[in-house]
């Protein structure tokens, strides 16, 4: 049995081996950070990281390796993702300076930057010659998740994007295909590329298999539903606001259509899907109970059984579907770049330079490639070089297809809405999703949500928010190019 400590040792060994086989490090962002950081040897830097699997990266791999290379200790403060924003703001507002480096969800960045909680990174980036390497991050993350008011506040460090996973054996089953053709007079699309086809395929599989396998399941728990709504609403042509008046338009036909179709989809999904979050949906898919689903990239790795034999992964159900899973963009062709993480430096830190050097090293081409391949961590490919890395493509038989789906998703992905006080708007969406499951009428829910959004906008200041929205809406991933 491989223990958590062994995993750390394996990670370090793999990292060192990777490093030794890369003499080019001598001139890259990683080695520049290591050399410069040696002056801070003996110091400790504290970094906020999402609790759980995410934190195994700095705990087992990058933290010990950084200590070995520079003599700097890394203290990891694990915080549940729902509390990260609060903790970061509390630390800043109190002036405690308890955190040096931060993991920041990109949609929070304007709020944190405007509040003054994040350090501007441009001077460090230039001082340590990291700009060229930074520019090799995949464009969608680099251009959209790095800056506020044209200043760098975070190094994009996680290629979070929704991917559609489908069972090739189920959708390719001749009996299913025949039944589909008989019913709809067309070949079963494999994979479905729009929601109409997706819903038809899902309903047919549930019907033909008499519930032995459900056609599809989704994240429906309200926290995840927020992301799912944002994606699908825009794929249906919806806009969040009227750009001229800043009046909320989430109660448009597109919004009502999404909510109405969700209710219909639940009828062919497993019972109780309304409560499903990351783990419930994962378990059902890996155990072969559902034929299609949409989720973040780790599902694809674990479905292929990559790294799931390690003890730290014992909570992940054993995959019964390895080799049977296809990867595609979500219906509509514009998946949500849901959440994701950037690495930032706290403005309240007393070790800003050391903290910056650590995050530059983490984010560098060489180190990040090792980190996105860690089977137990949740960082997903986010650099062009990650998507084309032959080593990654050889990790399991279909890994090349997987990387292509991630890259396609990144190229066509949609950014999370990011405004001043984003969480207030998102909270309204989360509550709207839970009201939907409580049986309220879609149109009434969205009318109320739009009114709440308007009230929030009024309180913040229409003109102020309008300018921020215009800036966000001008980004390449804000709305699909129709």
């Amino acid at each position: 049995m491989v223990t958590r400590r062994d995993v750390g040792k394996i990670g370090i060994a793999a990292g060192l081996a990777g490093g030794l086989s890369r003499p080019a490090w001598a001139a890259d962002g990683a080695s520049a950070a290591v050399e410069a950081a040696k002056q801070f040897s003996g110091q400790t830097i504290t970094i906020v990281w999402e609790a759980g699997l995410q934190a195994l990266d700095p705990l087992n791999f990058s933290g010990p390796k950084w200590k070995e290379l520079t003599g700097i200790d890394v203290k990891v403060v694990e915080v549940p993702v729902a509390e990260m924003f609060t903790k970061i703001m509390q630390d800043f507002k109190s002036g405690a300076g308890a955190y040096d480096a931060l993991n920041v969800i990109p949609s929070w960045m304007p709020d944190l930057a405007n509040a003054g909680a994040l350090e501007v990174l441009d001077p460090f980036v230039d001082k340590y010659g990291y700009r060229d390497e930074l520019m090799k991050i995949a464009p969608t993350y680099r251009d959209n998740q790095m800056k506020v008011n044209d200043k760098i506040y975070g190094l994009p460090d996680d290629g979070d994007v929704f991917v559609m996973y489908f069972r090739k054996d189920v959708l390719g089953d001749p009996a299913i295909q025949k039944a589909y053709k008989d019913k709809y007079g067309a070949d079963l699309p494999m994979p479905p590329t729009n929601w109409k086809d997706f819903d038809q395929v899902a309903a047919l599989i549930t019907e033909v298999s008499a519930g032995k396998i459900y056609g599809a399941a989704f994240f429906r728990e309200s926290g995840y539903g927020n992301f799912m709504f944002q994606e699908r609403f825009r794929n249906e042509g919806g806009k969040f606001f009227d750009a001229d008046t800043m009046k909320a338009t989430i109660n448009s036909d597109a919004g009502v259509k999404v909510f109405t179709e969700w209710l219909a989809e639940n009828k062919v999904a497993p019972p109780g899907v309304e409560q499903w979050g990351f783990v419930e949906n994962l378990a059902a898919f890996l155990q072969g109970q559902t034929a299609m689903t949409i989720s973040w990239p780790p599902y694809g790795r674990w479905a292929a059984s990559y790294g799931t034999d390690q003890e730290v992964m014992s909570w992940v159900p054993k995959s019964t579907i390895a080799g049977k899973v296809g990867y595609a963009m979500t219906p509509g062709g514009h998946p949500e770049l849901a959440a994701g993480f950037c690495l930032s430096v706290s403005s309240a830190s007393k070790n800003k330079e050391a903290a910056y050097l650590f995050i530059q090293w983490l984010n560098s081409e060489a180190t990040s490639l090792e980190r996105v391949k860690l089977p137990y961590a949740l960082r997903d490919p986010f650099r062009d070089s990650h998507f084309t890395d032959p080593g990654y493509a050889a990790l399991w038989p279909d890994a090349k297809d997987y990387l292509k789906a991630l890259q396609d998703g990144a190229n066509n992905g949609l950014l999370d809405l990011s405004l001043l006080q984003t969480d207030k708007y998102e909270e309204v969406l989360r509550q709207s999703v839970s009201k939907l499951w409580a049986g309220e009428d879609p149109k009434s829910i969205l009318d109320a949500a739009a009114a709440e959004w308007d009230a929030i906008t009024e309180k913040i200041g229409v003109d102020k928010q309008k300018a921020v929205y215009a800036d966000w809406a001008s980004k390449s991933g804000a709305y699909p190019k129709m």
Partner: protein
Amino acid sequence: MRAYHEQTMPATAVHPDRNFKYWLLAPAIFLLLLIGLFPLIYSLVVSFMRIDMMDTDTSFAWFYNYKNLFKDGRLWWSLAHTLLITAIALPLELLLGLAMAYLFLEKMPGRQIFISLLVLPTIISPIVAGATWRLLFDNKYGPINQILSWFAGERVNALWTINPTLVYPAIIFCEIWQWTPFMFLILLAALSNVDKSQTEAAEIDGARFLRTFRYIVLPAIWPVMAIAILIRGLDLFRIFDIIWALTQGGPGTKTETISIYAYTQGFKQFETSYTAAIAFLVVFILTVICTWAIRRMGLAK
């Protein structure tokens, strides 16, 4: 010897300063004021400012935040939810606690072990209890639906934390499970001290149980019972953990209590001044209720 001592000692030692005892108490009182009173005063001051996530406007804003309280429908709904939970859970906890206390009043084999086991829920952190109940109520993996399915003879898909008709029973059930033992323990202690000769005399005279309870037992246990009601009432008014773990105030805001709303405003949306105003609204309401209750229950006597 004494004369020498009196000559060499300072006058204050011979005639100790009558205020010296206050100087001894001062550090402890100062510490208590610092911990207890300072945050209260500071919060009061903050409630008259306009500090939020984006702005640290410390100028005097008069009653801006207090006026907004009256326009905030969500706040009053959260207060209504809090009162609803209190109004249902408190009597149920009292009645069940009293019934259990009566049951365990008589000597029986294993009494001490049963009492210890019954009290266990109260020593569990409410957030842990809430998280555990969330798992128990889970539609897919939770045993509650499983057990209901056995009785129903078909799969039961009750969405306890989402369905508006089930969510309050679920919350109240958890609350009662955790805190009835508290009532039980206090009332058991009170009942144990009731003069047995009086109840036995009533029994010999043919008094029925309810009559004995009404005229002999209740007056004897009332001071303790009233304190227990007051403590649990205040606790229920501040209920947060169990609901946060079970529903986070959902579906929508249907189970949002005043504490959850204040937490959301203060620590998720950083409406610092407004949250301070909410806190003082709660302090005001609780002060009125407590004063009324203490007078009504005769506790001041």
